[in-house]
C-alpha cells in the first residue's frame, strides 16, 4: 500500500513538499515562540489567504500575491506593536481580522472563478504542481542558508535583544530578516498544510522540544525531528486511510506533545 502511494506522482510531490516544510517551519517557529510571537504565524496565514484570493482574481501566481500580503502585514504588525506598546497582542488581533475580512471579500468577488476556498484554508497537498515544489524548495534552501550564516546573531537576538543591541548587532535588520523569512515560509506552506493549520507546524514541534531540550541548538534540532516524524507519519496515515493530510499531521503533532508531557512527567517523579 505504501509502495503504491510512493510511486504515485501526486503523493511523491506531497511527500517532498511536506518534508521540506517540516524542516523550515519549526526552525523559524523556534525563533518566534521564544520571542513570544507564536500567534504571528496564524495572523500572517490569514492575510496570505487574502493575497492568494486576490492573485486568483488578477490571474497571477497566487502564492506571490500571498507573499506580498504577508510581508505588508508583518510590517504593519511591527508598526502597530510600537503604537500599542503595552497591548502588543492587539496588533495581531487587528491584522488577523483584517486579513479574514479581505479574504472573504475577495472570495465573494471571485465566485465566478470557482475559487476553492477550502483548499487554501485546510491545504491541498495532493494538488501541488512542479512549480510549487520548486518554490518550496527554494524557500527552504534560503531559510537554511540564512539561519546557518546568522546563527550567532539569531541566538543573541532571541535570548537577549538588549544585549544584542548593546554589542552593536544590527537588531532592526535582523528583526526584519526574521519577519521576511516567516512570511516566506507561511505563504509557501499554505497550500501544503492550509492557512488554519500552519501555525501548528510553527509552534507545536517547538512546544515539544522546549520540554526536553537543554540548549538552543538542541531545541531546534529536536523540533525539526519532531516535525519530520509528524509530517511523514501524517502523510502516510492520511494516504492509506484517505484522511485530510494537513489535519492528520497536526493531530499527530498534538499526540506527540501529549506523549512528551506524560513521559517527561513520568521521568521526573
Amino acid at each position: 500500500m505504501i509502495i503504491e502511494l510512493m510511486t504515485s506522482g501526486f503523493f511523491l510531490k506531497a511527500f517532498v513538499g511536506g518534508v521540506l516544510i517540516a524542516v523550515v517551519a519549526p526552525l523559524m517557529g523556534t525563533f518566534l515562540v521564544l520571542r513570544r510571537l507564536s500567534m504571528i504565524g496564524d495572523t500572517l496565514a490569514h492575510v496570505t489567504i487574502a493575497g492568494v484570493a486576490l492573485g486568483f482574481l488578477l490571474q497571477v501566481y497566487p502564492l506571490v500575491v500571498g507573499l506580498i500580503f504577508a510581508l505588508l502585514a508583518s510590517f504593519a504588525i511591527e508598526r502597530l506593536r510600537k503604537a500599542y506598546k503595552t497591548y502588543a497582542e492587539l496588533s495581531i488581533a487587528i491584522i488577523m481580522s483584517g486579513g479574514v475580512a479581505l479574504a472573504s471579500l475577495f472570495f465573494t468577488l471571485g465566485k465566478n472563478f470557482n475559487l476553492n476556498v477550502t483548499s487554501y484554508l485546510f491545504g491541498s497537498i495532493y494538488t501541488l504542481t512542479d512549480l510549487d515544489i520548486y518554490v518550496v524548495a527554494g524557500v527552504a534552501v534560503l531559510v537554511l542558508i540564512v539561519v546557518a550564516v546568522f546563527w550567532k546573531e539569531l541566538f543573541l537576538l532571541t535570548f537577549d535583544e538588549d544585549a544584542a543591541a548593546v554589542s552593536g548587532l544590527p537588531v532592526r535588520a535582523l528583526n526584519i530578516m526574521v519577519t521576511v523569512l516567516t512570511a516566506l515560509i507561511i505563504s509557501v506552506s499554505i497550500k501544503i498544510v492550509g492557512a488554519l493549520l500552519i501555525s501548528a507546524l510553527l509552534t507545536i514541534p517547538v512546544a515539544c522540544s522546549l520540554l526536553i531540550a537543554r540548549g538552543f541548538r538542541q531545541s531546534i534540532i529536536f523540533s525539526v525531528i519532531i516535525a519530520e516524524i509528524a509530517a511523514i507519519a501524517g502523510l502516510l496515515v492520511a494516504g492509506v486511510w484517505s484522511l485530510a493530510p494537513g489535519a492528520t499531521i497536526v493531530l499527530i503533532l498534538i499526540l506527540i506533545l501529549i506523549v512528551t508531557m506524560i513521559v517527561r512527567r513520568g521521568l521526573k517523579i
Partner: protein
Amino acid sequence: MTIESSTNARCHQDVIRLEHVSFDYQDQSVIRDLNFAVQQRDFVGLIGSNGAGKSTLMRMIVGLLKPKSGSIELFGEPIEQFNGWQRIGYVPQKNSFNPLFPATVREVVQSGVYGKRNVARRIQKEDIQKCSDAMDVMRITDLASKRIGQLSGGQQQRVFLARALINNPELLILDEPTVGIDIETQHDFFQLVQHMHQHHRMTFLMVSHDMDMIEAYLGQEPVQQSGKLKFYVKHSHEIENCEASNLSHTLTVRETVSFKGDERN
C-alpha cells in the same frame, strides 16, 4: 557638578561622562539635568526607589535609550560615535530573561563575544577559548551543558557575569544583579565583585537595592544626589595598586571567595 580630575591621568580618565542629561517618560521628567562622571577604576553604586530612573539611566549609558537632552560620553567619545562596545560588560537584571529559555550555560557565556566584528562569521577558536576561560574563572565549567533555567539564582548571576567578563571589559555595568537571590548568595556575589574591583583594572557601575552592601563598601554618604537617584563612589585612589591585572588574574578569586550558592541548587 563633576568629579575633579586627579593628577594621575592613567588612573583617572573619564570612563563615563554625563552632561546635563534629561529624560522624560510620557511627559514625566524621570531624570533632570544630571551631571556625573565615572573615572577609571571607580566603583559607583547607584541607589534609588522604584521609578527613580535607575534603569533608564543604565539604558541610556549602554545606548539603548537616547537622552531627551544633554550629552553622554563613553571613554572620551560621544556615545553616538562610540564603537568600542566590547570594552563594556553588561550584566542585566536577573528577571529580564525567561527561565524556560532553552540555552545552555556555554551558549549564554559564548554569546558575549557575538558582536559587530563577527557578524555572519563563524566563531573563532580563540573566542571558544575565551568562553572556557570565563567559565573557569566563574567556576561554572561543570555546569556548561546545563540549561540556564535549571541553575540557582546565584549560579545564573555568575553565568551572566562570565558573559560580561569574556571580552575582558574595562567597564562593568551591573543592573540590580542580586534581585531575587537569597541573602547569603548576595553576600558572596558582592564579595566577588569587590574582589574584582580591588585586583583588576576595571571600572564598576552597579545599580542596587541593597543599601547595606553599598554603604559597607562605598561609605555612608552619597557623593551626589539627583532627584531620587543617589550616587555612592569608591574612587580608585582609595584602593591599592592602581596598575592591576586583567581577567586571567581573577583566577585568584577562587581562593578568596567561596561560592556557597553551589550547594543550594
